[in-house]
């Protein structure tokens, strides 16, 4: 049963309550760094590390953190992990670090992370909190990757820097420029709306059929 609950928390973040597509959280890094798949994945990994690390710590200390100053405590914990992630990326992949630039320190201000600490990690035991963080971070990583991949394929004709279409492809440059981020995410959300719309319609039809059947 315990396993089931952990699994539930995990899958919730990946799909049903996906932080980007369902809750529209963490938009700033989402749009700013997704002009190529590599950047998107690097950002996703950094966020993954920070979210899981701080959820673990916050949840372990949840009985010692005074309620009045909890937000400041969360922020300091998050900022510590972000600093670690920042210096690690600088040491391992300096090129990606340079492209992401100021957006790695800005993970601190990602409302997704603070939101999870406040809504989940500070209230539940460590195991569940970590599962929740892993789920949310995976959902975020998937969202970043799908946006980054779409934008890189359309705007550059490549994926992870590998050309896909040959020499005749005319890149749709606007997609890797700022407006492309807004437009792509808008269209993806539109797709999600449509999906939800259809599902609701289907459920209504089923309910209708059941009522008339009895």
């Amino acid at each position, binding site marked *: 049963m315990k396993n089931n609950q952990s699994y539930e928390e995990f899958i919730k973040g990946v799909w049903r309550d996906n932080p980007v597509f369902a809750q529209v959280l963490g938009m700033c890094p989402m749009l700013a760094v997704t002009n190529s798949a590599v950047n998107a994945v690097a950002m996703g990994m950094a966020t993954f590390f920070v979210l899981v690390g701080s959820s673990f710590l916050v949840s372990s200390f949840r009985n010692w953190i005074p309620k009045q100053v909890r*937000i400041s405590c969360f922020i300091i914990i998050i900022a510590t992990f972000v600093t670690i992630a920042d210096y690690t990326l600088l040491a391992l992949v300096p090129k990606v670090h340079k492209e992401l630039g100021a957006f790695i320190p800005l993970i601190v201000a990602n409302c997704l992370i603070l939101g999870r600490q406040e809504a989940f990690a500070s209230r539940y035991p460590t195991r569940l909190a970590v599962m929740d963080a892993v789920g949310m971070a995976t959902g975020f990583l998937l969202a970043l990757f799908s946006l980054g991949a779409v934008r890189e394929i359309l705007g550059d004709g490549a994926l992870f820097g590998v050309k896909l279409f040959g020499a005749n492809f005319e890149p749709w440059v606007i997609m890797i420029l700022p407006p492309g981020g807004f437009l792509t995410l808008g269209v993806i*959300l539109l797709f999600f709306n449509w999906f939800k719309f259809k599902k609701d319609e289907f459920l209504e039809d089923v309910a209708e059929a059941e009522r008339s059947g009895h």
Partner: protein
Amino acid sequence: MDNLPWIFISALLVNNFVLTYFLGLCPFLGVSNSLETSARLGLATTFVMLVTAVCAWVLNTYVLIHAPYLRLICFIVVIASTVQFIEMLIKKLSPALFRAMGIFLPLITTNCAILGLAIFATNRGYGFWEGIVYALGAGIGFTLALVLLAGLREEAELSSIPKLIQGTAMNLIIAGILSMAFMGFAGLFSST
């Protein structure tokens, strides 16, 4: 001193914080449903940006030379306490203004545009006056983007839009078009 006007225009239009750097999107999408609140929020943010720029300069010049790895933690703590301090100050000095700003004041802490401003100003090595002008430009640019989107959304409320596209999807597409329009400023001057 010559480049002050350029820093201002660059932060205001060419490198608009919201539409080009994607900073401060949460309030941009969250509270831009009426012109009045978005203008107020914009002004409050501009004010916090100014104070943050001064604090960041002081920290960079006197404290963080000795411990650069503490930069992020210092900035975030300073911003959070500044916002809290301003909140108390305004509450004491002018209760009417405090009521008018409401929940938006505390929420400014989690606006990444503020932290972004401090980090960008540090990375570019701006001095005292440059930092202030940069903060002013960025803040007014933020207000401008917010007010523009709010105006468009108020118009959209009155027209018949398919149910499917209403909500965040539509706001994002409007923002995309706005951002495209702001790209027109890109050739305004060549020294970014």
